[in-house]
């Protein structure tokens, strides 16, 4: 695939590793925000290839992992209604609520279907006028325009049997919250390239200035990741803290303006709870009043108030500390023993791109269950 495999070239990877090796003098902690980047890093063993001075911390950027339990519970409750077809991305199917996940709901009789795209749910709703088609719409800024386009299309087709449960997160507020912590260990950030494709990176300048830390817009392939890390290290060694773009073929400073307009038209900022982390002010998005007809929770009278949402502070799962960069996966006593992808305890074990699941699949440094 053009524009993809070039960035997995082992010669390029070697060159970049050498380049990083030459410039790094001091120990640094770099956090990649996005779970997709975490997945690549662990899958390709990038953390192993880097000089020991560089520690990669894995951020909270996986919408599947950070969607609150309450939202999953509501989705399951609605899915179990006989006239409902509950749909979502494959990632959401195994995320446990307080009792069980959507696949278990399916085994109990709910009509739960995996779709590739929110747009597919519109066709499904049109073909099943006697059923209510609900899409569990999770996402960061990358996925949000897709959900909104589906809602617009449903409106155009005058479909009254389509609605969404939203669980939408924004990245800058999360970076702000992580950096503002007193004991924050993060020296520099790799910003999520695909979020920036939509949002641009102008929002990050004030953050870089406020905390005097480099933020480098970074892609997802091994070469892209190493290039982002390289630029971040150069900044750190030069004691600069600005925003740079290491993913120029995809991301512009302004981002996708049409998508941003769409988001302004249809959404309003909201306080948002992050599973494993807690509430972060104005770190989420919800449908504007004009689109309330498509809000499944309104439709089913099942609204969730932010104050009802648990913050999971009482648990010994250290997911929150991991996603804030305070602890490593290796510090967790449950990893791979009591917490596995089949029976996850913490958020990052939930999605295949969650940091714990990535480590479990690709390194699994503790005993596997069957051995």
């Amino acid at each position, binding site marked *: 695939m053009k524009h993809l495999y070039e960035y997995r070239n082992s010669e390029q990877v070697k060159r970049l590793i050498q380049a990083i090796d030459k410039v790094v003098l001091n120990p640094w902690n770099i956090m990649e925000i996005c*779970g997709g980047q975490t997945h690549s890093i662990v899958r390709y063993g990038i953390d192993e290839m880097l000089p020991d001075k560089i520690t990669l911390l894995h951020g909270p950027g996986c919408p599947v992992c950070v969607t609150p339990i309450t939202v999953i519970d509501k989705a399951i409750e609605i899915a179990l209604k006989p006239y409902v077809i509950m749909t979502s*991305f*494959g990632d959401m199917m195994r995320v446990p609520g307080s009792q069980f996940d959507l696949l278990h709901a*399916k085994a109990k009789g709910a009509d739960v279907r995996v779709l590739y795209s929110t747009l597919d749910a519109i066709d499904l709703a049109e073909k099943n006028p006697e059923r209510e088609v609900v899409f569990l719409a999770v996402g960061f800024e990358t996925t949000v325009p897709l959900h909104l386009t589906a809602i617009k299309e449903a409106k155009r087709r005058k479909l009254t049997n389509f609605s969404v449960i939203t669980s939408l997160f924004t990245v800058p507020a999360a970076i702000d919250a992580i950096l503002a912590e007193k004991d924050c260990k993060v020296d520099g950030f790799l910003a999520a390239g695909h979020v920036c494709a939509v949002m641009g990176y102008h929002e990050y300048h004030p953050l870089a200035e406020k905390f005097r830390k480099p933020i480098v817009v970074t892609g997802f392939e091994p070469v892209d990741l190493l290039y982002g890390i390289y630029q971040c290290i150069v900044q750190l060694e030069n004691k600069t803290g600005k925003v740079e773009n290491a993913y120029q073929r995809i991301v512009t400073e302004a981002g996708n303006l049409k998508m941003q307009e769409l988001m302004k038209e249809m959404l309003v900022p909201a306080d948002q709870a992050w599973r494993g982390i807690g509430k972060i002010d104005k770190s989420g998005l919800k449908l504007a009043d004009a689109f309330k007809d498509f809000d499944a929770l309104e439709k089913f009278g099942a609204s969730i108030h932010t104050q009802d949402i648990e913050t999971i502070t009482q648990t010994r*799962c250290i997911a929150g500390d991991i996603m804030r960069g305070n602890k490593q996966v290796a510090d967790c006593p449950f990893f791979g023993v009591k917490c596995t992808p089949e029976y996850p305890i913490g958020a990052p074990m939930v*999605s295949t791109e969650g940091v714990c699941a990535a480590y479990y*699949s690709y390194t699994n440094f503790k005993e596997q269950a069957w051995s």
Partner: protein
Amino acid sequence: MELNCPLPVTEAEYILLGHGSGGRLTRKLIDEVFYPAFRNPILEQDHDGGVFAVDKKRMAITTDSYVVDPVFFPGGNIGDLAINGTVNDLACCGAKPLYLTVGFILEEGFAIADLKVIVNSMRKAADKAGVFIVTGDTKVVERGKCDKIFINTSGVGVLDDDINISPAKACAGDVVICSGPIGVHGITILSTRESLGFETSLQSDTAALNGMLNELCGQIKDIHVLRDPTRGGVSSTLNEIAQTSHVEIEIEEALLPVPEVVRSASELLGLDPLYIANEGVVLVILPSEVSEEALKIMRSFPEGKQAVIIGTVKSSERASVKLKTLFGGRRIVTMLNGDQLPRIC
């Protein structure tokens, strides 16, 4: 240590789809439900079929049920699959497949014209594999009680005395040969799913491998393991072998025969080709000294034309499968956890 967590750590008390996916959940079901009830030395060979002797003549028996949606797919249908799958399971025991039985479970309302098409392809597949369908059974269930048509086939075959193939026999110094491109069947089936909707030029690789495998077993006497990586894909099959043989199997990413389209589809859907089902591929594990000869034999058959060595077997205290990545790093390859689902993340 007390676990104080708001999430459940309870195991499922009922069957999930993942229990049939050929991965870890399937293994759990076998180990915790079936083995305790049925345990005996033949079953514990942990093979694709049971091998036993009648009047000193060695035989293999196997059974498999086929449920596939859609029933007709590019490159075949449920009928071909049901013949080839059972033939291949026998061949993977080192047996020469001879006779098959067929059981149909049909849904009320299923078109007889479709059934005829399926049955004719079964006949063709049986002819091609050189086996006879010698008895059968039909049941019809009410509409909605099964999905169009389910087929069970069982088969018996005979083995030469000097053949000793078993998933427990992989040992240090062996190499792993993969007979052909991986992931083709699984991606073909996915491409037909309305909810995913994509077009490829792929066709299922469903094929009987007994011609090639019988020739291989006839020529090379110290083949250690034969296994077709169907559900759960190459990684789940290798994990089972590693576990049964108590060895480490190391495969190399650069050597894996993944066709371009399978790779692309996997990228787009967020799947790993190592976990995708195959219906015309076999993994052969044998001493490296005889690997060139084996490759030569396999490549002389159309279904083994692209046979390649993908890895080696090492002794290890811990049974595991490792992958040497394109960049020289090593990572663990686990068994499939539930079904692979297309993902956005």
